[in-house]
């Protein structure tokens, strides 16, 4: 039972080690999807939102952890 719990924790931590980063990535994907499907803009605009959103997010997440003393 303990091992199953550890397995579940490992699985969750694989994709959601930092809650803020996980939520922000999902928000960027949703925003890119909205640009393509809801706003009906050129799909490449959605692609730019996705790519540059993730790049900015990465830098911000690293700096945020450095400010907090990291986790």
């Amino acid at each position, binding site marked *: 039972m303990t*091992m199953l719990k*550890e*397995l579940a924790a*490992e*699985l969750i931590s*694989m*994709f*959601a*080690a*930092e809650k803020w*980063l*996980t939520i922000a*990535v*999902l928000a960027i*994907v949703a925003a*890119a*999807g909205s640009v*393509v*499907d809801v706003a009906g803009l050129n*799909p*490449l605009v*959605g*692609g730019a939102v*996705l*790519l540059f959103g*993730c*790049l*900015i*997010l*990465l*830098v911000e*997440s*690293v*700096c945020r*952890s*450095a*400010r907090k*003393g*990291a*986790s």
Partner: protein
Amino acid sequence: MAWSTAVPAVSAAFLASLVEVVEAFTIVLAVATLRGWRPAVLGTAAGLAVLAGIVLILGPVLDRVPITTLQLAIGILLLLFGMGWLRKASLRAAGVIPLHDEDAIFAAEAAELSEHAHRQRQNLQWVAGITTLKAVLLEGLEVVFIVIAVGAGRGLLVPASLGALAACAVVLVAGAIVHRPLSRVPENTLKFGVGVMLSSFGVFWTGEGLGIAWPGEDLALLLFAALFLGAGMIGSTLARRLAVEFA
């Protein structure tokens, strides 16, 4: 099969598996050194059997999922996984969090088993076997996910699996030669590189799943990799400065 997709997929599977197999191997070696090779090998075999079962169950299920849904789901998971690795690798490179130390892990695992030996004389072989099973299963799960993630989107499961198997072979041969934890593997550099690759695949698959036709098709992966590498390095430089500032 386009080489511009196959080479990054196989390289990502190989390098990521190399990191995970080294971690599992360290624990297997600690158990084998303290409790003998029998429980270590049995635990490893049991862990590999469970992993094989997971792959055998997941494989046919994946074939039934529409390709765009699969690309979107796997792309998002790759983004979460890859950016998580890249974030940690950037923080390690900046010295904000300590580097992964295989010698320390070996010592900690050995100490835990010795402590267990003092407390409980019976069932030690069982505990040793379970320890290796757990290590192989936990690290192997990440390998399985990476192989499925970089391979399933474009029918590259077999090449990606071969990349992972090659990593296992390299670690086993290196381990057999040096017969001690593989502490000289430049783990953070590998994790940095793998984080870059997985994040690039993540953006690529997620975009394709959303109906975005990337200019240059598969070659866009190279641009994404260059941008993620640059972002990781910028993040690391900024983090180093911030860590000093906030210390």
